[in-house]
């Protein structure tokens, strides 16, 4: 409860700061729409030549693109700003202040700021998912919606865990901006259903850099392509990653050598 209250104070504070830069909002909306259009055109090129992509029809693939856009917004708004802040704090030693606060350090380090404009992508992503459902003329059953929500939460937990691991690397390497860029490069592959990939690539995208759980599986849930076993496995996988990333964070924290020590 206390953490929820803190989070709302943090976010209110960040949003007030961002409201100073309202012109950014327009630029963000424009760029989000541009990249969404880019993604849709890209998918359309495939469908000029084939009517299915790894067993997925055009509107179904658009749902995956919607989820890709949604999670892109979530990461850009909620996770990326914090990574930047933590790198700064570790470099100049002010991370001490985070550690001495009477609140869990992982909580502050990973959730302190939000760039609210970037949530535009999340909204647009949901819009595209709704549009695709309309094109498919299907109404998901309550069970399917339930599975979708579980998979969406699992996806959020998974991207959070991945970012926490990346933040942890900052304790060893001062510059980790290229590690986050590397993750984005892999994330690109999540634009398309994972079934399009063959062999090793699919295994990597499912279990090593589990992007399939983030974009493909929630779409599968909404389309009734997965049953409760897969949903449960996804959920358990997300919990496992959360625990593992927390362990890794604590391990990395031991390498924090304050400013003057």
């Amino acid at each position, binding site marked *: 409860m206390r953490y929820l209250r803190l989070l709302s104070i943090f976010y209110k504070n960040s949003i007030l700061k961002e409201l100073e830069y309202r012109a950014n909002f327009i*630029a963000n909306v424009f*760029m989000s729409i*541009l*990249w969404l259009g*880019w993604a849709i*055109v*890209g998918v359309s*090129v*495939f469908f*000029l*030549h*084939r009517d299915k*992509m*790894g067993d997925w029809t055009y509107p179904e693939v658009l749902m995956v693109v919607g989820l890709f856009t949604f999670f892109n917004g979530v990461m850009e708004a909620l996770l990326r700003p914090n990574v930047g802040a933590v790198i700064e704090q570790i470099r100049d030693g002010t991370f001490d202040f985070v550690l001495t606060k009477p609140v869990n350090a992982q909580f502050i380090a990973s959730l302190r700021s939000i760039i609210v404009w970037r949530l535009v992508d999340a909204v647009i992503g949901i819009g595209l998912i709704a549009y695709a459902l309309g094109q498919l003329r299907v109404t998901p059953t309550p069970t399917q919606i339930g599975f979708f929500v579980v998979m969406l939460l699992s996806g959020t937990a998974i991207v959070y865990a991945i970012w926490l691991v990346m933040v942890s690397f900052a304790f060893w390497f001062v*510059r980790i901006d*290229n*590690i986050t*860029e*590397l993750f*984005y*490069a*892999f994330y*690109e*592959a999540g634009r*398309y259903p994972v079934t*399009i*990939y*063959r062999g090793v*690539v699919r295994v990597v995208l499912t279990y090593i850099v589990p992007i399939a759980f983030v974009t493909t599986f929630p779409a599968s849930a909404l389309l009734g392509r997965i049953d409760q076993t897969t949903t449960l496995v996804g959920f358990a996988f997300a919990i496992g990653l959360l625990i593992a990333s927390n362990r890794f964070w604590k391990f990395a924290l031991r390498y924090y050598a304050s400013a003057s020590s």
Partner: protein
Amino acid sequence: MLTKYFALMRRSLGVMLEYRAGVLIWMLVNVMPLVMLAVWFSLAEDGPIGGYAQADFVSYYLLLTFMRQMTTVWVIHELDYDIRYGNLSIKLLYPFNPIHAYMSDNLADKIIRLAVLIPLGIVAAFLFPMMRYELTPLSVALMLLTMAAAWAMRFLSQYTFALLAFWVSEAQTLHEIWYAVWLMLGGMVAPLDLFPAPVAAIAKYLPFRFMLSFPVEVMLGRLTADETLLGLAATAFWLGAMIVAYRWVWRRGIKQFSAFGA
């Protein structure tokens, strides 16, 4: 000028070698051609798509990966920052146009990339024996020439966008639009032949193709002699246009900059 350049290059290479792990990670970041290859490869399982069989996609995208690596440019992040924070003032004191300092950093990065890519290319040749290229001295020479032109166009266009920071704070956003179009019409998402005919007909003449896929098309041997000549002429035209644009923006921008008293 040449001795100056050697000195510059030695300095840049020293800096880049210091950050070699960083360069390796940045190389891994450019995986988009391989993602597109994976997609087209499995789409082509049931037969060729618009004249491209699986082996053609492998040939196209592996060489495109090489082009993507060799035309990587990041100057906008540095120059935009240098202009907005006034660091450019120091670089203006150099005994040459500061563009050469940025350019030599980029070329040093290319030397390191080549040192990694050549062994990888040899491994790839064994791993993917289905790769087919037109390996004549002429086509290789043309590829190297058009690749150098592609790099120059990527560099100049990005540099010119960065110079807009003299007037606006959103130079990087403006460049992002250009970059998105480049990814789409430069042959990254799909070989241009696979776009609808009217789109392909226009994209053939736009600068984006000559900033990425044209050297690959030359090596695939799919172009007629006329098409190759036309491509070379278009390359020269766009490169010339970008040089003119850069000089114009630079001259006006530098006046603007000194007007600030920075």
